[in-house]
């Protein structure tokens, strides 16, 4: 084992100085891939977009009926409360599940000379983001029905979106890399995400949990992301910058590590076959 480590350190360099694919080619490739996954997701129709929104709406109805009657005191503007949590969660969940398979399922692209493998999770996260944005009109509809006032703090949305995107991307890289070694990562991940879903305060308020459980639940970064969306959408106040800042730092630390593991594993993957 020590022997193989030594070899790794003297990893060969590969230089491609002249005619390095221009940045705008990378951008074209990126938009092309996002465009393709949107086409596949929506079947090229407006109805396709509506269709994909049926699932969160159904979930909303279930939660509203089941929990709306059980929870004591009740949460004001409950429909907006659940829906904002659900769509933010959906972005997190679908992007992670899909990214986990991105090295293994795109083996053809990975064997393509010069293909920037690291683009794949970013494409998945971006597709999820666009899907998330498409559900905003419905959220706004709920907000209006619930009598929430839309205030200028909504201008802070891009910051929250960026932090969530960074968080998802850094996890996505790590998961895709793990999935190369352990092919059941996606299944295991689904179980974990299912658990996390119930611990993310999507249909209840995290503040209503009693200690010591509350301390554990607030370690889940999605709790704070979802709270931030609710702050700007429903309450019209500034989000909790401390919590968001912590998540931004976490992502900033995790992203380069995840990226490095991802690159290493994508090389290993093509060699192992």
């Amino acid at each position: 084992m020590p022997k193989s480590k030594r070899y790794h350190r003297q990893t060969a360099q590969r230089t491609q100085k002249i005619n390095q694919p221009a940045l705008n080619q990378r951008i074209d490739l990126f938009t092309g891939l996002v465009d393709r996954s949107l086409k596949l997701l929506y079947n090229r129709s407006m109805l396709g977009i509506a269709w994909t929104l049926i699932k969160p709406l159904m979930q909303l109805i279930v939660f509203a009926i089941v929990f709306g009657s059980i929870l004591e005191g009740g949460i004001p503007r409950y429909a907006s409360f659940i829906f904002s949590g659900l769509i933010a969660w959906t972005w997190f969940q679908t992007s992670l599940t899909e990214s986990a398979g991105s090295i293994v399922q795109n083996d053809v692209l990975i064997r393509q000379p010069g293909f920037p493998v690291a683009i794949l999770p970013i494409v998945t996260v971006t597709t999820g983001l666009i899907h998330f944005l498409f559900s905003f009109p419905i959220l706004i509809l709920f907000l209006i029905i619930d009598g929430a006032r839309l205030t200028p703090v909504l201008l802070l949305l891009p910051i929250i979106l960026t932090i969530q995107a960074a968080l998802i991307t850094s996890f996505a890289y790590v998961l895709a890399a793990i999935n190369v070694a352990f092919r059941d990562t996606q299944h295991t991940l689904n179980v974990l995400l299912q658990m996390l879903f119930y611990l993310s305060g999507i249909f209840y308020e995290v503040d209503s949990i009693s200690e010591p459980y509350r301390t554990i639940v607030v370690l889940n970064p999605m709790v704070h992301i979802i709270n931030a969306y609710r702050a700007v959408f429903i309450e019209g106040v500034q989000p909790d910058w401390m919590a968001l800042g912590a998540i931004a730092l976490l992502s900033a630390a995790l992203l380069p590590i995840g990226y490095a593991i991802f690159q290493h594993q994508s090389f290993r993957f093509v060699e192992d076959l």
Partner: protein
Amino acid sequence: MSEVLIVEGLGKRFRRYHTYRPRTFMQVALSGLKKMQPLDSFWALREVSFAVLPGEVLGVLGRNGSGKSTLLRLIGGVGRAEEGKIWVNGRIGALLDMGAGFHNDLTGRENLNVSGLIAGLSKQQVREKFDTIVEFAEIEDFIDSPMRTYSSGMRMRLAFSIAIHNDPDLLLVDEHLSVGDIGFQTKCMNRIEAMRAGGCAIVLISQSPDQIETVCDRAILLNQGKIVAHDLPAKVAARYRDSQN
């Protein structure tokens, strides 16, 4: 000199793993992490050095398992070498794993657009070459039909057509170049010849000494990952035939 490709002291080591290496969390739980460790390793390539000039066709001859495909992959930036260096001056085109990467639910047009980008073209370049690629692939009438309606021959022709229209400076060619009928094959060979005349360097890997002799300007013979001959194609081919007998 303005070599398109320089390979210097290239070495690639593969690890061998246990036959029952766990591939899932469940298997790890059942059999432990011990079998995750590599058993031993071997060099698939060692001390391989050569250079290719613009417009030159280099043949790489060798038996199965001699390291040809590994060499081609490394040049294409797929996988990482343990030793040595590879310089590539310009864009790489590859006639290797073709035809996959197409999506059945998208039309030929949509697939072509994305595959062109994947092959390294910009949006603008894909637009400019679109008609040429379609015409070359002989699928004009089907370009707006979904890919699932395509025959395997049509897919291969489209994939091939995209692969050779990305204006590479270095083209990597696998021996399995049999795409479509004789007419299409001839067209492909003519197209590759035209690219070569235009200054594109070609690296061709093959198990056939006859192919190397007819197509290449220069050839190397690989045996167990090492270069055992580097000479004119006729001499290298003769050496290969001797070693086979």
